[in-house]
């Protein structure tokens, strides 16, 4: 690439390295010249207003949308060769819940990438599935049809599938949408234990109030990358009011809340 990369190179290989990423669906790019390096083993929240390109960012990392410009490297490997090292948890609305498939079968789908087309799942695959179900505490529901679960349980099944997939990088699209507070907690615990295993997690999130508390780093995006850093670095008044265009009337309050929660989170 002729254009030099901004941002200093760190000694360790970034889990995700995005350089000059531009993605478009029409004349207006959904993402414009986004460059960021996400270090391994962190929990990153992607925030920004509706239509800011949060989901597009995730899809670009997955290689699911065409890039106009730019390079993506997953753990040092170009994205197109990194298939299988990334696991993805879809939005709940994207799934047909009446599909005749059980919880265990859904989680087993995460292993399909490890199988040649003539192979049947083996003991190792079954163990990985059981371990993943155990981790999200869904073992007792393994033989239920997926439509018979509550919203939070369904979300956990897809987390388990991503874990069974064994990717070092996990991408989650709005996992907290439409689940109640206690489920949100339970999901967050799963995210943290996945992080504890050394995985890198990128989570699309829409709630600014909880963003500071939940994530190690935040990525503020609205077509362009506005900031990437710790919650304190990102949740700045000037940045947020620019991105949210003053639509964030209760903004002062939100920021204080976020800062307070960050302190509380850091205290113990």
């Amino acid at each position, binding site marked *: 690439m002729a254009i030099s990369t901004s941002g200093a190179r760190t000694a360790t290989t970034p889990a995700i390295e995005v350089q000059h990423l531009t993605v478009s669906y029409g004349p207006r790019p959904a993402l414009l010249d986004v460059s960021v390096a996400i270090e391994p083993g962190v929990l990153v929240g992607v925030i920004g207003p509706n239509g800011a390109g949060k989901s597009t960012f995730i899809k670009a990392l997955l290689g699911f949308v065409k890039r106009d410009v730019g390079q993506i490297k997953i753990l040092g490997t170009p994205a197109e060769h990194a298939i299988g090292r990334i696991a993805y948890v879809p939005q709940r609305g994207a799934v047909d819940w009446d*599909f005749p498939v059980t919880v265990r079968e859904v989680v087993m789908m*995460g292993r399909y990438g490890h199988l040649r*087309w003539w192979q049947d799942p083996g003991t190792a695959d079954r163990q990985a599935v059981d371990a993943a179900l155990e981790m999200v505490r869904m073992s007792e529901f393994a033989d239920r049809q997926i439509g018979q679960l509550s919203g939070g349980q369904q979300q956990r099944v897809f987390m388990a599938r991503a874990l069974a997939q064994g990717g070092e990088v996990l991408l989650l699209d709005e996992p907290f949408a439409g689940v109640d507070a206690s489920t949100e907690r339970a999901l967050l615990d799963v995210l943290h234990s996945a992080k504890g295993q050394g995985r890198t997690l990128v989570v699309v999130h829409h709630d600014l109030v909880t963003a500071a508390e939940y994530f190690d780093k935040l990525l503020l995006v609205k077509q362009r990358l506005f900031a990437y850093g710790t919650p304190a670095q990102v949740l700045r008044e000037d940045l947020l009011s620019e991105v949210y265009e003053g639509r964030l009337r209760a903004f002062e309050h939100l920021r204080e809340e976020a800062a307070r929660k960050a302190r509380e989170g850091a205290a113990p």
Partner: protein
Amino acid sequence: MNAWLEHTFVAPLHQEFFLKALLGGTLVAVVCAVVGCLVILRRMAFLGDALSHIMLAGVAGGYLVMKFFFHEEAHAGGMLVGALIASVLAVAMIGFVSRVSRIKEDTAIGVMYTGLFAAGAVLVTVYSSEIHIDLYHFIMGDVLGVADDDLRASAIASALVLSLVILFFRHFQIASFDPVLAAALGLPVLLIDYALTTCVSLVVVSGISMVGLILVVGLMITPAATAYLLTDRLQRMMWLAAGFAASSVVGGLYLAYAIDSSGGAAIMLFCSLQFLVVLVIAPRYGLLAGWLRRRRMLPQELVEDILGLVLKAGARAVSAGELRDGLGHEPRATLRAVKRLVQDGLLEARAEGYALTEQGTLQARRLQRAHRLWETYLSQVGTPEAELHGQAHKLEHLHEEASVDYIDHILGHPLKDPHGSEIPPDFVDTHSGQPVMVSLLRKDQGGTIVEVKPAAATYTPLKKGERIKLRPRNVAANRWVVERADGSVVELDHAVADGVLVQPDP
């Protein structure tokens, strides 16, 4: 009897055309049904129907090409290939139209398939002297007159499709359920989609010679839909669909033989009837099951009224007649509810009538507490005396624990309702084994203090770890009178009593 059985079931088997139809029909129907499972799960039924119509153009084209260039009359393989090419072209055109214009996919299918069907019909009529396709047979099918060539072509197509589905079951499953994941795993989603469409075209071509182009879509989706009502696993759904398809062919052919009707139509009729029966009797997703489930659900109000009435009777058992006439509910529903309450262990049947079990008493007391608290609340917010009971009777059905506890709290945990009756204590919380606020305890209850909240600590000498016992409440001042271990007494107001948590003695 025996002669009749012989005539109905065995005699047809001596006919070669019947055996051939049985064999060919089952083969095609089973494969149709297996592919149909994927078709209905991906909501492709309309596409399947469209593809079957498009076959006409393909078959006519294949026929003409074979005739003019190779001088082969009615070459089955040529027609099969022609049909395949037509369907792949059609799918590509449908995709193209819905991509480049604002036309949605189902509309694009409608536009394209009628156009191609018309092209086929024009070809067949213009070259009517060259093409010896019986249009009627093409549309209605002729399972009882199936030719050996057709049978062979169908067998090859079916074997190919079935092998594809078995070998790549996982790929079809995941691409149908979650194409994004399939792509993320590096599976060729587009290729899988085309493979599925090709499979659909192949089974449609083989099915048309049996049941005709109108009915073939039914052969594909009806057995699959029937199976879908019975299972929650794709693999089992495919097995069941295959079974239903086979039984439709067998049942339909015997039906056709018995009443001398068109074979294809009889097969589809049998298949549809099968679906209707399963729709009614399916154990989980059937109509009957749904109706039974609703019937088993008792109206909550009725249950609560019954428990209330029996509780009011005290130690005396309440006769069935009293329950039936005393509540103002529909008598049969009341008696059914009473029976269910006995089954559920809330009521017990005695010689003189019905009495509450221990569990039933707790439940009834809980409802009574809700009623009396609501009554107290209503009188405090200024409801006229005469309306109190009626209103509270309606409100007592709002007895969710947290809501009632909140009403109890804002009323200052009253002991008596406006009529002077005792309000039952909050035994749900005090018997839960968890610490409770002193304000929930009644006289003579005691326990060990586990926490004194900072806000309360300034106003009371009580300390963590201390044993206490409640004396009768000072009702005039609404203060809680607490006896300490050394016999001395402290009084707490509501806020402080809320701030002291006690592990109650069992």
